């Protein structure tokens, strides 16, 4: 099975670059959510902000994952990975689960109890609900790869010392 699976070239990005991209993509996603929540629904500004933020997130995750070992590490079967790669992947999924579950619990409490009680913003329109749903979809799909990108050390150069 290991022999038939095509392994992509190792990521050429340094750890620092990957971390900057992950932070940028996360900031773009948060900016999209904030725009939908704070700006009047249906306005041109909201549409432009959503489009810009969505493109930013997709490009960010795309740069990290495309043709790199990051995506491979997050999605390849056990038999295609060695012990170091399995350790990195398992650690990334463990962290991603913690963040995802934590955010889901906090969001549920906020929307059902804290937000209405304190008179804070809660989603009331179609756009706001979809922004939250897509936010969780993006988090669920992107968090493990994001943590892999964050944790993976600088690549080892190809040349032999």
């Amino acid at each position: 099975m290991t022999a038939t699976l095509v392994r992509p070239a190792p990521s050429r990005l340094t750890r620092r670059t990957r971390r900057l991209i992950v932070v940028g993509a996360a900031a773009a996603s948060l900016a999209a959510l904030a725009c939908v929540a704070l700006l009047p629904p249906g306005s041109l500004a909201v549409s432009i902000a959503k489009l810009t933020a969505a493109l930013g997130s997709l490009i960010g995750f795309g740069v990290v994952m495309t043709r790199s070992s990051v995506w491979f590490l997050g999605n390849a079967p056990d038999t295609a990975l060695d012990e170091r790669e399995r350790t990195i992947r398992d650690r990334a999924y463990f962290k991603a689960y913690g963040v995802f579950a934590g955010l889901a619990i906090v969001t549920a409490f906020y929307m059902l109890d804290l937000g209405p009680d304190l008179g804070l913003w809660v989603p009331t329109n179609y756009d706001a609900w979809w922004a939250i749903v897509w936010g969780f979809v993006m988090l669920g799909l992107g968090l493990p790869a994001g943590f892999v990108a964050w944790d993976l050390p600088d690549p080892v150069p190809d040349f032999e010392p």
Partner: protein
Amino acid sequence: MHNRITLLRAERGVSRKDLAEAVGVNFQTIGYLERGDYSPSLELAMKICAFFGLPVEMLFSLSPFEPLTEALLRAETTRPTPETTP
């Protein structure tokens, strides 16, 4: 975890890819081992030792290895001379 993989590879003319294929890991993993970014499992350490045909304590150590030149010098100075050999 400290190791002498780089030294042994250079000494025996083994590439990272060759060693990686022999012990069943990605060649990047060998690079991370050499750089000290990853500590191997006992199984991987034993496979690497078997590849080089050396005991584990010669390849892996929890404390830094003595530089090879110093070890050679010490061996040279403690070597018994012909007069002292029975």
